[in-house]
């Protein structure tokens, strides 16, 4: 594929609001996980909560979009001068030449969960202040981003569970290659809600300790929330020093099971192979892999086997979910930004919380940060329904 420039990017999660705080946490190998104190949830589990969301007031004119998910998105897109970058791009390309692609899994369903607790005692009706379209609906975050910047090009939500905000890069790259748009605002946002906390708990997939990706005794996920955004533009002739490019995208489906991965990670392997082929790279060219690494026994085993089969056991890799939690539909975007920071700063982030590694997964899993220049990195995102997406990011210089 023709490389695309990540001209600007930002991320907000429990390890930091904005890039600087996020990078500091990565450098310190800090985790943002804490015991679940969200809403009225009575589960013995840990979460990655963004405390700054509680203080967000929706921008004037956007009150109809008010829900935890869009507050988190607004908080994120106001960091790191990202909004100014989008507005400058809109002037440069034209508002109708920029597409918006936002990945989310549950969008603002928490708003509907709250409304269901306030049903009318007589007829069961939802409260009159409940606005389904712009708060709960899967499209709500994408329409929020489009309205916030008054962009006039194509807009869509991508919602393929935990691969959602990796796959936004694929959709945006196709739309740019087809000439429909010149640039794209891509990203992902998912926020804490009862649906995912009780849902993953029903499957026995939430851990009662901070999640431990790739550990011998790993016992499930810690659910987090995050928003991450990037501005994708064609890579011009001259690029700024340290510029980060999207150079490869690979997508596949498992055709195996709705909530369990293929045991050998066959779909995962196909996605990684396609991404390498799109980038014109060999597996030996990849200097760091940001694993999907959810810390469920089955995900890490399947992914570990697929990575070992394709890369051998020498490529440094880690899952950053021990720090951020599994941010579900935002994970692909958040980990894309972490990869961009890794490339920019030459920092290979360690997996935190893991402790003793699973001896059955022979990978060069990083338990301590490593500092070395990177050229190409790969990020994996997989999800329910057997959806897989791998992205490759590269330094331009």
């Amino acid at each position, binding site marked *: 594929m023709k490389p695309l420039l990540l001209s600007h990017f930002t991320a907000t999660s429990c390890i930091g609001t904005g890039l600087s705080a996020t990078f500091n946490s990565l450098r310190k190998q800090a985790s943002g996980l804490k015991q679940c104190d969200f809403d009225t949830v009575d589960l013995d589990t840990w979460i990655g909560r963004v405390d700054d969301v509680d203080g967000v007031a929706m921008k004037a004119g956007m009150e109809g979009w008010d829900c935890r998910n869009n507050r988190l998105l607004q908080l994120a897109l106001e960091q790191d001068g990202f909004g100014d970058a989008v507005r400058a791009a809109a002037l440069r390309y034209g508002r*109708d030449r920029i597409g918006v692609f936002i990945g989310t*899994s549950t969008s603002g*369903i928490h708003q*509907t*969960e709250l*409304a*269901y607790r306030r*049903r009318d005692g007589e007829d*069961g*009706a*939802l409260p009159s202040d*409940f*606005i*389904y*379209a712009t708060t709960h*609906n*899967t*499209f709500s975050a*994408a329409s929020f981003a489009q309205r916030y910047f008054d962009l*006039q*090009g*194509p*807009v*869509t*939500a*991508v*919602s*393929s*569970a935990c691969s959602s905000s990796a796959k936004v890069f*694929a*959709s945006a790259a*196709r*739309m740019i*290659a*087809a*000439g*429909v748009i010149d640039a794209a605002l891509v990203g992902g946002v998912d926020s804490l809600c*009862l*649906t995912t906390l*009780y*849902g*993953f708990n*029903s*499957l026995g997939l939430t851990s009662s300790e901070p999640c431990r990706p790739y550990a011998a005794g790993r016992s499930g996920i810690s659910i987090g929330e995050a928003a991450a955004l990037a501005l994708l533009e064609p890579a011009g002739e001259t690029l700024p020093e340290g510029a980060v490019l999207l150079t490869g995208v690979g*997508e*596949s*489906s*498992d*055709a*195996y*099971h*709705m*909530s369990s991965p293929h045991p050998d990670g*066959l779909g995962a392997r*196909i996605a990684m192979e396609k991404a390498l082929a799109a980038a014109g790279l060999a597996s030996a060219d990849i200097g760091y892999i940001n694993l999907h690494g959810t810390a469920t026994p089955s995900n890490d085993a399947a992914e570990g086997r697929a990575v070992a089969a394709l890369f051998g056991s020498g490529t440094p890799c880690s899952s950053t979910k021990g720090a951020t939690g599994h941010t579900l539909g935002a994970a692909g975007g958040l980990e894309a930004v972490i990869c961009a920071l890794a490339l920019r700063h030459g920092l290979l982030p360690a997996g935190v919380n893991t402790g003793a590694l699973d001896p059955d997964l022979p990978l060069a899993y990083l338990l301590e940060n490593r500092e070395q220049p990177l050229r190409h990195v790969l990020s994996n995102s997989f*999800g*329910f*329904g*057997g*959806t897989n997406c791998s992205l490759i990011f590269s330094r331009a210089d």
Partner: protein
Amino acid sequence: MTNLHAYIDGIGLLGPGLTGWEAGRLVLSGAQPYAAAKTALPAPAMLPAAERRRSGPLVRVALAVGVEAGAGQDLAGLATVFSSSGGDGVNCHELCEMLASNDRQVSPTRFHNSVHNAAAGYWSIGAGAMETASVLCAYDGSFGAGLLEALAQVAVDGVPVLLIAADNAYPEPLRAARPIPDEFAVGLLLSPRRGPQSIARIGAALSGLPPTVMADPALEALRGAIPAARSLPLLDALARGNPAALVLDYLEHSRLAVDVAPCAPAA
């Protein structure tokens, strides 16, 4: 914008009073009168027994139109685009009702069926399809978003793409906020090259024009009531088999202008 184009090689249709493309095209072309009736929910024969039991109405109509549009094709090898205006409303209601009660122990099946890509996941299992599956939502413009994504993929990757847009009925109390009255699903097999099965060539571009409305008041009401039925003006043109220029609903600030050129005279 660049005009995207593709050949339509197969069509699937299920909706109120529209039971498959062969029957539906007679209604849409005016050869037979439209008679409203509850949408049929065929059992998904392509799924293994366990998955068949777990599949909800949205999955059932989505898979049915996919099988109809992809008839005669190697389904395992097809890339797919799924689009829905909000996922399974019945499942969402059941989840939210349970989470508002004193017993929050939701069922695992209920939870995995809540993902927006449930239909894509079941399709992948049923068809053995390991190719790219894009899963989109653009509220009332979801059909337009799916069509644009599928056309871009046909153009860039040069492969056939199966587009499936589907919605299901929302129960009360959600229906008061999201009044979708019944199931509707449409499948289009889009190909980069003309083949023996090709029905028509379509071209599409973003447009500021208002959407084309259906001449039949009952079909126009259907187009307005269910987001996936915003495809009806395109299906109408395909059913009549005449060259046509129409506009499909998409976003508040943008619609899709579509040209239809039939590949063979109408039967």
